[in-house]
């Protein structure tokens, strides 16, 4: 648990990519990886980009390993690391982190101790279509 209060900044780019990915696959769970860096003053984690990963076959290992390796390679040339994990559940009222999401999150935490997990609130996503609220529709957990 973080004893120093870390702030997390999510860039518009990352946010939009994740939301669009979830909207494209409304009938299955989706997940993705958050890319970013720690700011130089060491108190903010900037999440600058996101890579959507899967929309089926989430709990299977080989795909996850390869994608993490390739993502690390690609972004380390740009000076960014994997800083978190994003998950959206299949059912619209399921608002808990399942076992799979927790495991993947733990794994990422091993490499980057300040990693965050973002869980999509499906009900708020639905409401987005009807209202123009700008509140975040994700819940962050560490």
């Amino acid at each position: 648990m973080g004893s120093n209060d870390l702030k997390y900044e999510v860039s518009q780019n990352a946010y939009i990519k994740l939301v669009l990915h979830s909207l494209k696959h409304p009938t299955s769970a989706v997940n993705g990886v958050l890319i970013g860096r720690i700011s130089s003053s060491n108190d903010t984690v900037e999440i600058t980009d996101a890579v959507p990963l899967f929309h089926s076959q989430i709990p299977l290992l080989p795909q996850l390993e390869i994608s993490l390796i390739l993502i690390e390679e690609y972004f380390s040339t740009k000076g960014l690391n994997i800083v978190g994990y994003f998950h959206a559940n299949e059912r619209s009222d399921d608002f808990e982190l399942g076992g799979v999401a927790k495991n993947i999150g733990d794994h990422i935490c091993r490499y980057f101790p300040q990693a965050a997990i973002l869980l999509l609130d499906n009900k708020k996503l639905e409401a987005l279509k009807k209202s123009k609220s700008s509140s975040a529709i994700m819940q962050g957990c560490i």
Partner: protein
Amino acid sequence: MVTKTEESELKNLEIQVDNGGGGAWEYLSLVRKLKVRRSDKVLKHGLSILNDSKLRSKLGADEWTLYEQVAVAAMDCQCLDVAQDCTKALRKRFSESKRVGRLEAMLLEAKGSWEKAEKAYSSLLEDNPLDQIIHKRRVAMAKAQGNISGAIEWLNKYLEIFMADHDAWRELAEIYSSLQMYKQAAFCYEEVILAQPTVPLYHLAYADVLYTLGGLENVQTAKKYYASTIDLTGGKNTRALFGICLCTSAIAQLTKGKNKEDKEGSQLQSLAAKALERDYKQRAPDKLPQLTTALKSLTLSS
């Protein structure tokens, strides 16, 4: 599971109908035949046919099939009043029909009145215990309420009666995977592969589950199934090629102290690596350097 040709035919028809080029009825019939889930399009085009009385009378007896299809699509898109209208029209025409009774129970399910729907399904099943669709709706209801263990129980009961339903085995395997019960998931995939040994997707999924289970034997078997997937798809399946590289490096790690020269294994891996590089050169040449470093790291770590 749809084949590539059927998928492209469906897409062409979809584009044609979306741009006002007619052919809506052919599109809807194809969707019905292939059992794909395109509820928003079905709703839009189905309603346009049903609301136009000239087009409707041209359909003749098929009109009622269209009503059923649109009702189900409306329920999927949560347009419950449309679904209710279609079901009422069908009930007026076929007052004693069990099929309409099923639609009415589905409407209850879509509204979220779980107990009423459960009662309706049970009574329908008493009259007709071999109705596959109702059994599947029960499983779907349990899953939708979050009762995953209930869903597994119902699905197992269903499979005891209908052992040849591959889609049900696949659904069960996916549920087990999401609960991380990989051994049971592997069993389900084995059943599916026995029934349909020429579908590469099942081999691929089985190999994935075996790799996730871990352990030397499982990873070796996984490698064999990745190889059979490549065989069945003529070497074009990227996931299987990656799978082979992962398996070889995992096997090498697991047999580190045993000094086994697995020449055949390393040949397979270098072939897979070459095929991957060729594929990337063709389709995504700017990602090629990442691929080569990733592959090197896999072989170095072994």
